[in-house]
């Protein structure tokens, strides 16, 4: 009656394929999620950046070879903003799965739970990437944002690493959030501080001019280094310190997410019952 022994490597692959298919199918059914993920950064790019362009001069800083418009400066940060919101949304989706009971389907798999979480993480990251590339296409159309064409390829690993980092933070948070309603707290205490206290909107030297402690807060924020990694990769440059910090943070948060995952809490549906 029992199924024959599976080739383990193949079983792991099938599991990854299944999780990716499920997450993409769910994503395809949530067109509003796709649109809102694009509207948010586009508003920043088209409205916010247009207003601040005159007020904020951006000096020549790496990786740029010349003065750049403010839109050009913030575009990589906005790519990371998409990844940030998606990563945090993954925590929302995990809490939703927990409340709806579908988390139990995942936990009933014979494969190691660490692998199941990694599959989830990769799925979240790949979904985020499709949105970032859609945003880059719209940014080119709307404000003429034109990084080197090859940059669109070299930025891919940087975006993937950043998506994994932010997805891991999202998964870690999901083990701490008890109810969907608590997601507003994530917005206020995680997403906004991470985004604003970084180099996404202003160069670090400008931050330092404004406040020394703000500058150091930016330096301590892993999101800053992810933004710089993406910014440099878009212009065909490798920012090694940013890569090291982003990779280190990704490994750390992934480990914390896996270790902090509580299957008992995850198995309990609404009302705390399994």
């Amino acid at each position, binding site marked *: *009656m029992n199924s024959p022994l599976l080739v383990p490597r193949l079983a792991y692959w099938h599991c990854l394929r299944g999780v990716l298919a499920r997450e993409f199918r769910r994503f395809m059914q949530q067109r509003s999620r796709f649109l809102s993920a694009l509207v948010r950064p586009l508003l920043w790019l088209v409205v916010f950046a247009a207003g601040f362009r005159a007020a904020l001069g951006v000096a020549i800083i790496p990786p740029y070879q010349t003065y750049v418009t403010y839109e050009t400066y913030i575009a990589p940060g906005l790519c990371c903003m998409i990844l940030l919101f998606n990563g945090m949304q993954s925590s929302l989706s995990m809490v939703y799965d927990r409340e709806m*009971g579908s988390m*139990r389907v995942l936990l009933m798999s014979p494969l190691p739970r660490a692998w199941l979480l990694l599959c989830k993480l990769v799925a979240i990251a790949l979904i985020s990437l499709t949105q970032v590339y859609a945003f880059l296409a719209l940014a080119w159309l709307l404000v003429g944002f034109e990084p080197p064409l090859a940059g669109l390829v070299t930025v891919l690993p940087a975006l993937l690493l950043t998506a994994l980092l932010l997805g891991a933070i999202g998964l870690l948070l999901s083990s701490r959030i008890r109810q969907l309603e608590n997601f507003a707290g994530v917005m206020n205490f995680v997403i906004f501080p991470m985004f604003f206290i970084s180099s996404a909107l202003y160069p670090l030297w400008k931050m330092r001019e404004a406040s020394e402690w703000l500058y150091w807060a930016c330096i301590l924020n892993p999101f800053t280094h992810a933004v710089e990694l993406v910014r440099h990769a878009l212009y065909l440059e490798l920012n090694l310190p940013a890569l090291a910090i982003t990779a280190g943070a990704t490994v750390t948060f992934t480990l914390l997410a896996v270790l902090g995952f509580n299957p008992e809490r995850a198995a309990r549906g609404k009302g705390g019952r399994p």
Partner: protein
Amino acid sequence: MSIAVEHLGFRYGRRVALEAVDFELQPGSFTALLGPNGAGKTTLFALLTRLYALQEGEIRLLGRSIRQHPAEAMRQLGVVFQQSTLDLDLTVMQNLDYHGALHGLGRREIRTRATAELERLGLIERLHDRVRDLNGGHRRRVEIARALLHRPSMLLLDEATVGLDTRTRADLNAYVRRLCRDQKLCVLWATHLIEEIAADDRVLLLHQGRLLADARGDQLCLNTGSNTLAEAFDRYTAPTSEHAA
């Protein structure tokens, strides 16, 4: 032996949910786990399915401890939970595909098995319908098909008929009994509905976390001098029970 539960105990903080529960289930047997709401049935299921970590005692599936061989244990178990765990926005096939993949099955294999299971359940024409569009009885059948997709040797159903009308409940119960007989599945059917239990079924009577009785339905009546199983159940679970085993 399909399932062996040895001296199982579980607490939520200071509240005792299960205490010293022992039983064994044979391959190809149908066993009813009877108990009122809050008896500890769902907690027992959560322990059998490794959703909760064992606190006291041991569970063996086909002779192997689920603590030491969790992957093997999960491959042996098919489970239908009390609360539906289907993804309502995905189709029947997509739900089965997800489950099969989580058990390490390839797409072609999943498709073949899913078609066979749904044909048997009379749901093949609903393969590409969204689960949201199915009625409660059909959803439960899809959950059974899903639980059997990886060909487990044990099927656990936790109050699988809750919320269904009488006829659908009876159909589902009869279908699971057929599965048990034809496929030699070991079935543990948790319920608080006495009409789902036949006189010759083995009954595990769980109450306030303790296993009060382990006997055939008609034997429970004999033990308590009752005419019906409902009466026997009331006598066993009365506050001053004389029959606590």
